[in-house]
């Protein structure tokens, strides 16, 4: 556990890092970024909290089993989203230009960017973002738990 200044700064910065990561994930089909990058940004937020508060305190807040379950759920959502379009082919983008959820038609060329487009891409971005968040967080937690055992 680090000093009070570091903990206060971590408390202040943690929600902003989370919001920035979810912004990158949600706008993956419009701006630079996507699921992997946004998930990595959220994982840096977890790393900041782990470093500021130490493993012993974090252990009761964030469970390792929760993180690995999050990762599995993300991967399953990704594969299921790919399977829904199996009528045409695996990974078929069945929502694009259909008028349903995320199904608005977009004209060719430069445009300001509309969130309700791109079919299955935002869903896959969200699934992969959840998966990367869980995976990197689980790796961090496992390595921090080993450091604690050596100290004892």
């Amino acid at each position: 556990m680090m000093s009070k200044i570091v903990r206060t700064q971590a408390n202040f910065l943690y929600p902003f890092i989370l919001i920035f990561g979810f912004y990158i994930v949600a706008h993956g089909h419009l701006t630079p970024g996507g699921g992997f990058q946004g998930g990595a940004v959220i994982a840096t937020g977890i790393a900041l909290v782990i470093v500021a508060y130490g493993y012993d305190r974090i252990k009761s807040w964030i469970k390792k089993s929760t993180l690995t379950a999050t990762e599995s759920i993300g991967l399953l959502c990704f594969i299921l989203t790919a399977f829904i379009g199996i009528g045409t082919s695996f990974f078929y983008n069945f929502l694009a230009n259909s008028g349903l959820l995320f199904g608005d038609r977009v004209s060719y060329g430069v445009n300001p960017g509309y969130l309700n487009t791109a079919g299955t891409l935002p869903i896959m971005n969200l699934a992969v973002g959840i998966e990367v968040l869980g995976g990197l967080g689980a790796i961090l937690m496992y390595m921090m738990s080993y450091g604690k055992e050596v100290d004892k």
Partner: protein
Amino acid sequence: MIFNAPFISVMILVIFGLYAMVFRRNLIKVVIGLDIVESAVNLFMVSLGYVKNGIAPIYTNSPGGAMVLPTPQALTLTSIVIGVATSAMLLSFCILIYRYYGTLDTRKVRRLRE
């Protein structure tokens, strides 16, 4: 000569990484050398797809003009995540080796030989 500057920097990075992997004795430094080589390969793939005066292949409020090739960038995205996974596995093996041998020096990790 000067328009090949990215390729030259890629080769210098590969050489630095290979030097660290061959001549260093510490296992953590070997892993760092592997990561440097990996970054050099990523830079090589991105610079292969560069088009002169090109912009990023994104249509949102873009200024217009030629776009750089998107496929090498997608492959680089794949490569970066696989590099993170490889680094995590190697570092966890380093942790295991330190646990069983008490050192990370490759000259001293030779209990199998005796």
